[in-house]
């Protein structure tokens, strides 16, 4: 049915957004072409993001766990780390998933075109063929015409202009390469990505410094959640520098010498074996010739879209990191399905109420929907159910009772508006809170749902009972 075009659907970029869009389009019967500059599918998330970071974080979590086991009666020897083998493990994990994607693309008859794509007009893209493990161009170019297009070209790590070009200065991709075991590491930016990588390196032996311009780490999460993480993680850090900027850096024989300015800046420049730039990601909107297709791109490189993920050009859609915050894989996937269905003429729309966030640190920090900070700022009256894991049998049995689960309810309707969990496996449980919000559940709905004992998951039921005033696993509410 593609008629005058080479395909019904061209998807630009094969990250979680792009492959999901292409697969959905193919499943709906469209002749689909997926253009990707790199050799393997999966984009940032599978190749240099979500997945390799979690493979390493899992290993780090086990190592950290083991280091406390002697107090429980089990003593292990000091672990021997084989970096090559660890790296190979990470590569294998990534390979399993990207290999799976390639196989599924074939089953769906999605044609993969390797190369760098750039629009030449509203129905045509030019692809410059690339080769090898990077994006080296072969010089071959071809034009592909399409009836519909979904732009899923993602984002790139931001680099500070004054950072020296040196192997000891890396972004998250470089950090994931795990080239060595630095003794002293600086994390630029106190966001999730930097703190996750810091966790890995610190468990492997590095002392950490972190510098953040704002007045707290892990922005976006409520401070009470972050406080628990921070208390547990203070031993990893020599110096947490808030409201502080990096103003210069110099590569020396002994390390990277970094200068700071701001409230908590050390007077002297500091020396590091490894500097991780994790100051944010910028969208790739300006690198794909969008103007040739007539697609509007914002100054910062984002592509504005409507609730069906449609750009200003009706047959061109955009999804994922390139359309805006939050830059998260699960957002990209859900947007992808909407875009593919909308292109097919279905009335799909992106109308999820909430998108959860998770820091896969140790403990994990997960939150979804309204935060307490937002409630305060927006003057929304809330009722809180706060269940401390010191009252959770399972958390105590796991010797990890530092966490808590809190749910925020509308003070008037008692409907759940948001929630946060800090503690081990928080990320695996926040989905229930998201479902509760989407379903419009109230404190009784959640509290009267029987959660199995003893689990960490029952903390969600308990938090709802606390809000409702019926919990008997915590001290009585003061009257």
């Amino acid at each position, binding site marked *: 049915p593609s008629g005058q075009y080479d395909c019904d659907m061209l998807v630009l970029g094969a990250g979680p957004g792009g492959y999901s869009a292409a697969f959905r389009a193919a499943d709906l019967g469209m002749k689909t072409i997926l253009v990707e500059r790199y050799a393997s599918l999966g984009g940032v998330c599978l190749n240099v993001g979500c997945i390799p970071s979690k493979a390493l974080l899992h290993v780090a979590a086990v190592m950290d766990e083991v280091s406390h086991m002697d107090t429980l009666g089990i003593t292990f020897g000091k672990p021997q780390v084989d970096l090559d083998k660890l790296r190979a493990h990470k590569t294998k994990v990534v390979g399993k998933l990207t290999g799976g994607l390639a196989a599924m693309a074939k089953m769906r008859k999605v044609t993969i075109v390797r190369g760098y794509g750039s629009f030449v007009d509203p129905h045509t893209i030019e692809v410059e063929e690339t080769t090898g493990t990077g994006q080296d161009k072969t010089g071959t170019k071809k034009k592909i015409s399409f009836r519909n297009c979904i732009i899923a070209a993602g984002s790139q790590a931001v680099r500070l202009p004054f950072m020296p070009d040196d192997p000891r200065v890396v972004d998250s991709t470089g950090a994931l390469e795990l080239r060595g075991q630095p003794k002293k590491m600086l994390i630029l930016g106190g966001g999730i990505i930097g703190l996750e990588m810091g966790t890995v390196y610190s468990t492997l032996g590095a002392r950490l410094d972190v510098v953040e311009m704002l007045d707290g780490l892990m922005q976006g999460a409520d401070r009470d959640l972050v406080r628990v993480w921070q208390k547990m993680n203070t031993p990893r850090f020599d110096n947490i520098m808030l409201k502080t900027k990096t103003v210069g850096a110099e590569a020396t024989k002994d390390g990277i010498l970094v200068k700071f300015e701001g409230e908590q800046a050390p007077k002297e420049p500091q020396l590091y074996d490894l500097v991780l730039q994790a100051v944010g990601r910028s969208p790739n909107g300006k690198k794909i010739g969008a103007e040739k297709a007539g697609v509007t791109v914002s100054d910062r490189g984002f592509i504005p879209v409507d609730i069906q993920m449609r750009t200003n050009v009706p047959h061109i859609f955009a999804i994922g990191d390139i359309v805006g915050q939050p830059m998260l894989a699960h957002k990209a996937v859900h947007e992808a399905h909407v875009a593919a269905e909308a292109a097919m003429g279905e009335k799909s729309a992106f109308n999820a109420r909430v998108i959860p966030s998770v820091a896969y640190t140790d403990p994990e920090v997960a939150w979804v929907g309204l935060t307490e900070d937002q409630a305060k700022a927006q003057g929304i009256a809330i009722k809180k159910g706060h269940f401390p894991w010191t009252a959770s049998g399972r958390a105590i049995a796991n010797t990890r009772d530092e966490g808590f689960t809190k749910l925020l309810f509308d003070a008037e309707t008692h409907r759940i508006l948001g929630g946060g969990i800090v503690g081990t496996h928080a990320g695996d449980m926040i989905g229930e809170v998201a479902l509760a919000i989407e379903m*419009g559940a109230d404190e009784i709905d959640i509290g009267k749902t029987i959660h199995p004992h003893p689990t960490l998951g029952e903390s969600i039921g308990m938090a709802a009972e606390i809000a409702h005033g019926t919990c008997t696993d915590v001290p009585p509410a003061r009257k």
Partner: protein
Amino acid sequence: KPIASPAVRNRAWELGIELQFVHGSGPAGRITHEDLDVYLASRGQPGAVGA
């Protein structure tokens, strides 16, 4: 804000129904698929949605 589950919200959107005009018969006024059916029957033909 009317309460409705994702499936009900999606269907309402597809049918061009504004949920604030639909009576919710579920617990705490939750709008169900059946409520959409009733609304549709009373309103007649579903309208188109401006995208």
